[in-house]
């Protein structure tokens, strides 16, 4: 652990920022070019169309300029990254078959325990590949697919190909192109018509290797009248050099279906987290993003919903909590393409110790999408003078018969609130943590109890930086 440097969250290193001795079965050379892409594809034994897709995506990536908005991505050296680190020969179906070190890591992170207590299925990714994957038998019998994306491609190529890259094509943005070129791991989910998966499925993403990039790809298809709640968590060792995480998530929610996608992002403070997440909601379907961002050096992530057909609903609940050295540019996008569609965005951002947290959002109503309703509420809480909060609410409304509301507040923790809580015996950090917990309560109460507890625990952890 000698090279581990704690950037600000003092207990992060101890709880999440540890790492195992490297024990991968294969590690590609550093850098990015067509031969690297070729090798990844070859190792995976992929069909030709996927290899072609990757190569084309790499060309797009190389051609596209770096984004100049959002956060500072200028320091990323794309040639100084390992794009593929394969941890094991194959995915395990029991934890006993996961190599001891990796199993111990997931034990420390509480994954097998959570699986037993309150999950329908778990996928655990370690560096570039999923090392453990399992779904409860009864769901499997109902035809629910929950696989790693690699296995999805192998075992259900037709379905996979039909949806892959359709919602987020490589040309969408530079990092979507990068992901498409070098993607590995992630989840593939299909929920058949009318099947309700009442208990969440969870994927956990863990980076272990120094100087690596993780590029998981997730594809979720919720068929008519079906329901699924997918939860993802992630952590990484605290290293003195930066890591890159750039995922692409595409979700399709068919007529009358509902999908909830919950993220508790807790990367170490040396991870660039540049993620593209998009869902298409069809007739009377509901898509809900619950997006919690506590970690990373820089996050740029704006979960989107394209409301494709009448009656579709989008809900985005976003939390960003930035501490020292962190810039979390979170947000949401709702694109109303059909009449009588609704969207609701609630964003809560918190910044302390010089951190910067913000909301960047777009509400778009296309011509003809009459009777749409959209509400956006962004609240920012700034805990000290050095910290910063930004709100960029964009709107493109091309139709008159719509109802669009936007409300934003910025507040600082008041001396009176602190004094009041302290007069009841809470220390200053405890009092601040309580105010912050209360601030995000409207979102946390939407989470299943176990995740609400986890979220509050992570908030406490984030606040512990205030002690002394």
């Amino acid at each position, binding site marked *: 652990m000698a090279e581990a440097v704690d950037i600000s969250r003092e207990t992060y290193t101890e709880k999440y920022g540890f790492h195992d001795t490297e024990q991968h079965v294969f590690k590609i050379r550093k850098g990015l070019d067509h031969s690297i892409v070729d090798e990844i594809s070859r190792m995976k034994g992929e069909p030709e169309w996927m290899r072609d897709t990757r190569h084309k995506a790499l060309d797009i990536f190389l051609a596209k300029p770096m984004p100049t908005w959002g956060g500072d991505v200028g320091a990323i050296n794309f040639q100084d990254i390992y794009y593929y680190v394969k941890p094991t020969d194959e995915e395990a179906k029991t934890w006993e078959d996961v190599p001891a070190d990796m199993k111990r890591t997931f034990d420390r992170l509480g994954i097998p325990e959570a699986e037993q207590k309150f999950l329908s299925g778990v996928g655990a990714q370690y560096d570039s590949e999923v090392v453990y994957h399992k779904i409860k038998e009864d769901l499997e019998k109902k035809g629910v697919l929950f696989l790693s994306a690699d296995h999805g491609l192998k075992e259900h190529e037709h379905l996979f190909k039909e949806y892959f890259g359709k919602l987020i094509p490589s040309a969408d943005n530079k990092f979507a192109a990068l992901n498409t070129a070098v993607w590995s791991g992630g989840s593939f989910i299909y929920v058949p018509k009318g099947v309700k998966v009442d208990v969440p499925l969870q994927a956990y993403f863990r980076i272990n290797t120094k100087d690596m990039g993780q590029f998981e790809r997730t594809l979720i298809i919720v068929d008519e009248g079906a329901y699924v709640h997918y939860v993802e968590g992630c952590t990484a060792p605290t290293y003195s050099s930066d890591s890159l995480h750039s995922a692409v998530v595409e979700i399709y929610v068919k007529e009358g279906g509902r999908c909830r996608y919950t993220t508790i992002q807790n990367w170490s403070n040396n991870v660039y987290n540049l993620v593209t997440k998009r869902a298409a909601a069809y007739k009377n379907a509901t898509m809900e993003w619950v997006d919690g961002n506590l970690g990373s050096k820089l996050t740029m992530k704006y979960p989107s919903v394209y409301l494709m057909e009448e009656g579709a609903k989008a809900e985005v609940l976003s939390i960003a909590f930035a501490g020292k050295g962190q810039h979390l540019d979170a947000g949401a996008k709702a694109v109303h393409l059909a009449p009588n569609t609704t969207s609701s965005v609630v964003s809560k951002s918190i910044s302390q110790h010089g951190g910067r947290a913000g909301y960047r959002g777009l509400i778009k109503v296309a011509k003809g999408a009459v009777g749409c309703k959209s509400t956006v509420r962004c609240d920012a809480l700034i805990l000290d003078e050095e910290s910063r909060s930004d709100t960029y609410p964009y709107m493109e409304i091309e139709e008159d018969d719509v109802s669009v509301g936007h409300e934003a507040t910025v507040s600082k923790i*008041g*001396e*009176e*609130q602190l*004094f*009041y*809580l*302290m*007069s*009841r*015996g*809470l*220390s*200053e950090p*405890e*009092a601040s943590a*309580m*105010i912050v*917990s*209360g*601030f*995000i*309560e*409207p979102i946390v109460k939407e989470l299943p109890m176990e995740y609400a507890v986890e979220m509050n625990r992570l908030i406490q952890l984030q606040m512990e930086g205030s002690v002394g």
Partner: protein
Amino acid sequence: MSQPDLIVKDLQVSVDGKPILKGLSLEVRKGEVHAIMGPNGSGKSTLANALMGHPKYTVDSGQMLLAGEDIGELEADERSRKGLFLAFQYPTAIPGVSVANFLRTSLNARRKEQGEGPIPVKEFRTLMRSHMATLKMDDSFAGRYLNEGFSGGEKKRAEILQMSVLKPQIAVLDETDSGLDIDALRVVSDGVNALRGPDLGIVLITHYQRLLNYIKPDFVHVLVAGRLVRSGGPELALELEEKGYDWLIEPEAANTQA
């Protein structure tokens, strides 16, 4: 007689550089109720806030001792955990934090100080409910966000609820009667009276004698222009009710000008 549990010695306090308390001394023993009465601007709330350690109130000189210990340099939370309580005149809203969650966290902070573990959830619920019943509060109150959208009466009841659960040694009640109608005043007073006893000393700060009909003080002090100008028994309150504060202010004002 034992040493007083709260000793305030020649306390001088200023706010934004302006002197408000100009040498106030007070001794309170557990089991006693001291009423501090005074006109607006006499320094009543300053006394309450300075005792609790509000950072905006600067203690220029003098001493505050709680159970013999000088608390002048302690933060508000440390004073609280040592057994001091302030019922606020204007309690602050804490959005998103339920009354129950807040009460349990506060109680656990105190228990930790005393080397005890956190209170079991069930035990806490029973405790909270019994105190809420005394204060005629509906069970649903526990789930509401602290002071958010509370009526004046609900805020004051919530303050007394906190006091009941935290069991302080010395409680300072800052204008607990303000903004209450007669029914609410009775409920709040009953709540305070239920806590009266040999383990609790109370400093009751009020502008009006009215409250003292419900909470009978053992001692009454009159605060004028930052000093206690008269001390006596309950009869002093009645005298104030009859004569107002003017007869006490005039000689004081004359003193200041001299």
